[in-house]
């Protein structure tokens, strides 16, 4: 070591700047690596906790959603329930008393029972105040403002969610006297009933 200093000395002993720089940059480099490692550890912890949180919430959501898992199938069944109701809605009187027809009625009641026990309930619509949370307006017709005048398709709830909104005709506040020729839609609807 003494030799090195002697070599450098040409009057003034200069500080061995290279070594100093080397130490300094090594220290900086280590510090940077340490900082990065700490940041990395933090990222890892966050990612891990996100993952745990995700698992938990996925599980919760799964249980909550399970009760609505039947919704698509039930909705399709409702379409057939509609058809049966249409059928009974236009059944000739003479047939009503037939035992065979009674049988079909019983089947229909059974189907209703299945829906009920699955948590399906009918949405009140006829004559009620229109509520877009439960009903969907298909047309406006003369009648008391905001009142449901006709239900074109029944609505149903599954537990506390709307499974299918009721499709309705809503009064527009005008009197039917003033618009007795009415909308074509209305008369066609009468025909269809």
């Amino acid at each position, binding site marked *: 070591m003494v030799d090195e200093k002697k070599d450098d000395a040409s009057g003034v002993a200069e500080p061995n700047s290279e070594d100093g720089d080397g130490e300094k940059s090594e220290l900086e480099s280590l510090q940077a690596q340490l900082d990065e490692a700490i940041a990395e550890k933090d990222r890892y912890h966050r*990612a891990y906790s*996100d993952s745990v949180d*995700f698992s938990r919430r996925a599980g919760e959501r799964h249980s909550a959603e399970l009760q609505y898992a039947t919704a698509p199938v039930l909705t399709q069944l409702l379409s057939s329930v509609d058809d049966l109701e249409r059928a009974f809605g236009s059944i000739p009187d003479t047939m009503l008393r037939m035992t065979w027809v009674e049988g079909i009625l019983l089947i229909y009641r059974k189907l209703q029972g299945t829906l009920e026990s699955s948590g399906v309930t009918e949405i009140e619509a006829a004559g009620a105040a229109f509520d*877009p*949370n439960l009903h969907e*307006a298909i*047309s406006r017709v003369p009648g008391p403002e905001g009142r449901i005048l006709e239900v074109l398709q029944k609505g149903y709830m599954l537990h506390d969610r*709307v499974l299918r909104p009721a499709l309705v005709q809503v009064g527009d506040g005008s009197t039917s006297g003033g618009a007795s020729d009415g909308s074509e839609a209305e008369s066609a609807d009468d025909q269809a009933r």
Partner: protein
Amino acid sequence: MARAIGIDLGTTNSVVAVMEGGEGTVIPTPEGNRLTPSVVALNKNGERLVGLVAKRQAVTNPDQTIFSVKRFIGRKQNEADVQQDTKLVPYPVAAAPNGDVRVTMGDNQYSPQEISAMILQKLKADAETYLGETVTDAVITVPAYFNDSQRQATKDAGTIAGLNVLRIINEPTASSLAYGLDKKGEEIIAVFDLGGGTFDISILEIGEGTFHVRSTAGDTHLGGDDFDNAVVDWMIDEFLKQEGIDLRSDRSAMQRLREAAERAKLELSTVTQTELNLPFITADASGPKHLAMNLTRAQLESLTAALVERTAGPCRQALEDAGLSAGQVNEVILVGGQTRMPAIQEKVTQIFQKEPNRSVNPDEAVAAGAAIQAGVLTGDVQDLLLLDVTPLSLGIETLGGVATPIIPRNTTIPTSKSQTFSTAADGQTSVEIHVLQGERSMASDDKSLGRFMLDGIPPSPRGMPQIEVTFDIDANGILNVNAKDQATNREQKIVIQAGSGLSSDEIEQMTKDAEAHATEDAQRREEVEIRNTADSAAYAAERLLEEHKEAITDDVRDRVQAKVTEVRQALEQNAPAEQLRTLTEELSRLVQEIGQSMYAQQGADAGGANGASGEASADDSETVEGEFREV
């Protein structure tokens, strides 16, 4: 940690998504819907309604129910398109002093930004309900053809809604992110977006993680609704022919027809024919009438051929504007529900001369991509975003030339998995670790990634040494395979670089092959296992005979030995698996007789003296009976 959401703010419907588990996941509304209609209304009581609720009352409140406001955002009222679209909406559209569009709800005028902000507010609230925390940051998507004014207005809408809009990104870019295309390097991508009401085709160029829109084209009035209408028209015409009644004037019948038409259209994407069944659709003097018609996929395609053809023009235009030929497009992705139709996919294949990528849910791709971008911009998921998966299983070759997987395919990386193996022969002092990539059951059908030897294993009976083999893949995709002998702690390893395995085409082929040969492979694997079991059984039986030769009667020994010879011969002659299995079972039963014989012998020796049997049982505890070690 505050979550950032991605929002697809659509003309008709909007979707909100969030990054979850590394993917963009759609957030449902509290009512369970994955779409929110882009509709805002003011009802008679002065209450503001947004979304599905607003849509349901639209008919009763046409002047104050605002929809399709996206057509007006960032535009001047006197623009030609705006004038055209104004005719299509029942609500009044006016001009502000500076020429911007204004709509009226109740006593107030609103800018399209303010209306969009109401929709965004609902999406924000639904996201907060779902996530259980406040949401502030968002990425919102816009069509690629939106100009600066439209983009700024969309961003303003976000700000008005209380969101910190991290970025406005293009819808085709968002879809590309959802498809993971940003990880693929330089590519030309065509985004074919056919939704409910509009068609957009975009040509994008991806390079070094940035997206550049080369061209866009489309048809602002072509969508799934038009396809539904084609079916409805056909149903009406057919019914008119059959029954002489025009259902067009019957509102409730039309409602049923539309629903049935949409359902039929959806079904015909997966089956080739469907029945349209609408009992009691109407009635006349002679009684009730039913609609029952068969619609085949071929008929549907014929009814909608003109609509499908209308997608071709804009595609060719977009290619021309981008200065590219169809062959130069590397990948086509599908967005929008209508792209599920086979005829559309065929058209796309025809135009771009390659099959489209449809691996992502087309209804949700844009929102999912926006969520991914949101996740990246909030930084905390930046590293995780690059989570890859191993496309194929990684494992080693084991006795009989079988490929034994250690890391199954589609495992996210980084990951580390270990399994313990042993030797196949007595006195074996080294094992060869042959690293494989693939899904086949036999090593010879998989890709060989490398081999190395671990030696210095203390000579022992086969099956005794414990060699732990660890497969470790780091975040860069580099595979380290390490084999360690538990007895001596001697280790050896090999490092396999990322990408040294099969190319993506080869991977696809390998996966297809594995599926095609699945039964065959399963059989071969089983056969090898039966052989190995037979071999082990013979070996174990012989060892038993050797260890306890004094305690076993000659008769038992001879019979067991004969069976062992039979098994060995069968193995040498490559007897069929069934035969080997039977012989192994027979051997197994015979070997049990060794035990029986030994107990019987012991009983005879003890002669009823308790002390002696006590000794004998102490002896017994040292013997190891009937142990089979499977390799």
